[in-house]
C-alpha cells in the first residue's frame, strides 16, 4: 500500500462522484431537487455497458448512457416543473424507475466483457514529480475531462450570462420571469444536463473505474453519496470535486485495509479476520453522515448556499417569492 496508488485510484473513483455531483449542482442551482441520481446512474451504467457490448464501441456506450440518464431525468422534469408535484417523492420514484429499468434491461449482462474505455498518459504533465504519475498517467479521458469540467462549471455559473440566468431561476424565479428569462425552459435544460452527467458517471463506473455489470451493486449507493456531496460542497463545484476525490481515495484505502497484508511495514491492526471488513465497508456511509453534519452546520451558520427556490415549484401568475 502506498499513497501514490491510493491517490491514483482515488482520482479515478472520485471522478464518478464528481460528474454526478456537478450535474446535481447544476440541477439544484436551477431550483429543482432531483433525488433520482442513483437511478439515473444505474441506468447509465447499464446502458453504457450494454451498448458497448452490442456495438463494440465503448464511446458509443458512453453516449447512450448520457442520453439514457438525460431522458430519464426529463420524466422528473415534467412531473415537477409542469405538474408541480412534490420534488422529493418524484425523485424517489425516479430512483425506483431507473433501478427497475436498469435491472430489467440489464438482465443477462453480468459476466460479459465488452470493450472498455482506454487509459492514456498526458505528455509533459506526467513527468511532474509525485503528482504526475498519480494525476496524469493511466487514467481514462473522462477522468481528465473531470479536471476541466470543475473550473468550467464554476466559471459558467459565476461569470457568464447564462450562468447568471441559471442562478436567477433558482433564487428568484418570479423576478427572472419578469425579466424575460424562460424559467420553465431553463429548469428543463438543467434537469436534463444533471441527468446526462449522472448517466455519464454511471458509464464511467461500468466501462472504466470498476468495469462490469453487477446489477444494483454496480453503483451501491454512490448516487446518494453524490447528493450528500452537493450539500457538503454547498453547491460549489470546486468543493464538490475536492470532496469527490477525497471520498474516492477513502474507498481505495478501505479496499487496501481489508487485506491481511502489512500496513507501512507493520502488522495491520484492523485485520482480525475477513468478516471484520464489514466495518470497513460501513465507513464511507458513516463519513457521508459526518460530512453532512459539518456541511449542514456551515450552511445554517452562513444562512447561504442553498438556492432559495430549491424544491419550490414555480407557478406562473401566482404570487412569486
Amino acid at each position, binding site marked *: 500500500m502506498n499513497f501514490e496508488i491510493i491517490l491514483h485510484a482515488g482520482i479515478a473513483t472520485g471522478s464518478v462522484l464528481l460528474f454526478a455531483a456537478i450535474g446535481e449542482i447544476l440541477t439544484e442551482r436551477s431550483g429543482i431537487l432531483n*433525488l433520482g441520481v442513483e*437511478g439515473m446512474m444505474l441506468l447509465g451504467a447499464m446502458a453504457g455497458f450494454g451498448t458497448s457490448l452490442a456495438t463494440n464501441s465503448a464511446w458509443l456506450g458512453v453516449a447512450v448512457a448520457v442520453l439514457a440518464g438525460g431522458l430519464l431525468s426529463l*420524466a422528473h422534469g*415534467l*412531473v415537477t416543473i*409542469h*405538474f*408541480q*408535484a*412534490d420534488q*422529493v*417523492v*418524484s425523485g*424517489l*420514484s*425516479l*430512483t*425506483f*424507475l*431507473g*433501478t*427497475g*429499468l*436498469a*435491472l*430489467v*434491461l*440489464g*438482465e443477462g449482462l453480468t459476466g460479459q466483457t465488452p470493450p472498455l474505455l482506454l487509459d492514456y498518459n498526458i505528455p509533459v504533465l506526467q513527468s511532474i514529480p509525485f503528482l504526475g504519475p498519480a494525476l496524469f498517467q493511466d487514467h481514462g479521458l473522462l477522468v481528465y475531462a473531470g479536471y476541466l469540467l470543475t473550473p468550467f462549471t464554476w466559471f459558467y455559473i459565476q461569470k457568464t450570462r447564462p450562468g447568471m440566468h441559471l442562478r436567477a431561476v433558482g433564487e428568484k424565479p418570479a423576478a427572472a420571469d419578469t425579466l424575460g428569462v424562460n424559467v420553465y425552459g431553463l429548469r428543463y435544460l438543467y434537469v436534463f444536463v444533471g441527468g446526462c452527467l449522472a448517466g455519464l458517471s454511471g458509464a464511467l463506473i461500468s466501462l472504466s473505474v470498476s468495469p462490469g455489470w453487477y*446489477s444494483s451493486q454496480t453503483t451501491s*449507493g454512490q448516487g*446518494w453519496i453524490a*447528493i*450528500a456531496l452537493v*450539500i457538503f460542497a454547498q453547491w460549489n463545484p470546486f468543493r464538490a470535486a475536492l470532496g469527490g476525490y477525497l471520498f474516492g481515495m477513502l474507498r481505495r484505502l478501505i479496499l487496501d485495509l481489508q487485506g491481511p497484508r502489512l500496513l507501512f511495514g507493520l502488522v495491520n491492526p484492523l485485520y482480525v*479476520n475477513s*468478516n*471484520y471488513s*464489514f*466495518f470497513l*465497508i*460501513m465507513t464511507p*456511509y*458513516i463519513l*457521508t*453522515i459526518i460530512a*453532512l*453534519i459539518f456541511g*449542514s*452546520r456551515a*450552511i*445554517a451558520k452562513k444562512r447561504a448556499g442553498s438556492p432559495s427556490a430549491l424544491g419550490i415549484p414555480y407557478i406562473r401568475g401566482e404570487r412569486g417569492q
Partner: protein
Amino acid sequence: MAFRIRTEQRVEVPKWLPTATSIGSVIIAFILGGVIFKIVGGKPLQALSFFYQAVFGNWGVFSDTLVKATPLIIIGVACAVAFKMRLWNIGAEGQFYAGAFGASLVVLVPLVPLDSPKVLVIGMMMLMGMIFGGIWGFIPGYLKAKYKVNEIITTLMLNYIIINWNNFWIFDQWSDRGFQMTATFDRVAWLPRLADYAKEVKAFSGVTLHLGVIFGIIAAIIVWWIFRYSRWGYEIKLIGDNPNAARYAGIDISKNIILVMAFSGALAGLAGMSEISGVVHRLQESISPGYGFTGIIVAWLAKLNPFTIIPVSVLFAGLIVAGREIQPTGLSFLLQGIILFLLISSDVLIRYKIRLVRVDKETE
C-alpha cells in the same frame, strides 16, 4: 380547425376523483410494465394470470400473500406517520433490519431465559425490536432537529450501515456452523401461526399466517386514532401542512421531529421483529426484498390513510410473491416506480380541470 388544451384550477374536488386516479395509476402502470416486459421478451398476459394464481389462487397462497403483506402494513403505517409531517424517512429498510437485530439479541444472548413463558419472550422481542428500530430512527431525527441535516440521506446511509452491521454478526459471531445465518430460534421465540392450531381447525393446516398481521392492524388503528383524536396527531399534521403556523402556535418542531422519527423507526423495527419471529425464525442475510422501500409507495398510494394501507399492502405483497417467480427481478421495482410516478403526476388532475377546447381560426 385546431385544438388546444386548457387548464382551469378546480374549486371543488369530486370525492371519487382521488381514489379514481390512484386506481387508474395502478392499472396504467401494469399496462406499461406489461409493454416493457413484452419488449424484453416476456409473456405479459401469461404472467398476469400467473400473478393472479400465485397471489389469490387458493387459501394457501393467499395466506402467503398476507404473510408478505404483514411487514408492508407495519412499514406503510410507519412511513405514513413520518410523511404526514413531511419528514422523509427513507430508512424504514434499515430500521427493519435494526429491529430484527434487536429481537435476535433477546434469543441469542439470551436476554431472557428461554424456558420463560412465550408471552415474556415474544414481548421482550417486540420491545427490543422497537427500541433498536427506534434508535435507528432517532439518529436521523436528532441530526435533523439539531443540525438541520437532510434526513433523506442520513436515513439511507443508515440502511447501508445496519445491513453491514447485521452481516458481521451473521457471518462471524452468530454464524451457525459457518453458514451465513444464525441457528434457528427456539420455538418459544416463534410468533403463533394459524398452522399451529391445525389440530383444532382442520382448515388451518399448513397456513403460514402469523400473529404479526394483527400487529399491523393494531398499528394502523393506533395511528388512525393518533391522527384523528390526539393533540400530538394534530401537531404533526399542522407541522406538515404549515410549519410557520405551527411555530407561531408554539409547537416545538424540533421535539416533534425527533419523536416522530423515533416512533416511525420503532414501528419499522417491529416489522423486522415480526418477520424474523413469524417467518424466518432466525437472523440471516436478505430478510427483506425491499419491504422498507415498498412501504414508502404503499403509504403514498394509500394517501397516508392507515386503513387504506392494509388493502394496498396486500396488492403489493402480491407483486412481491409474483415477482419471485417472474423473472427478471427488477420488474417489481420498475412497476413500483411507474405507479409512484403516475400517482404524483395524476395529482395534477385533482388540482386542475383539463379540457380540450376547439379553437377557430378567426377567434385566434
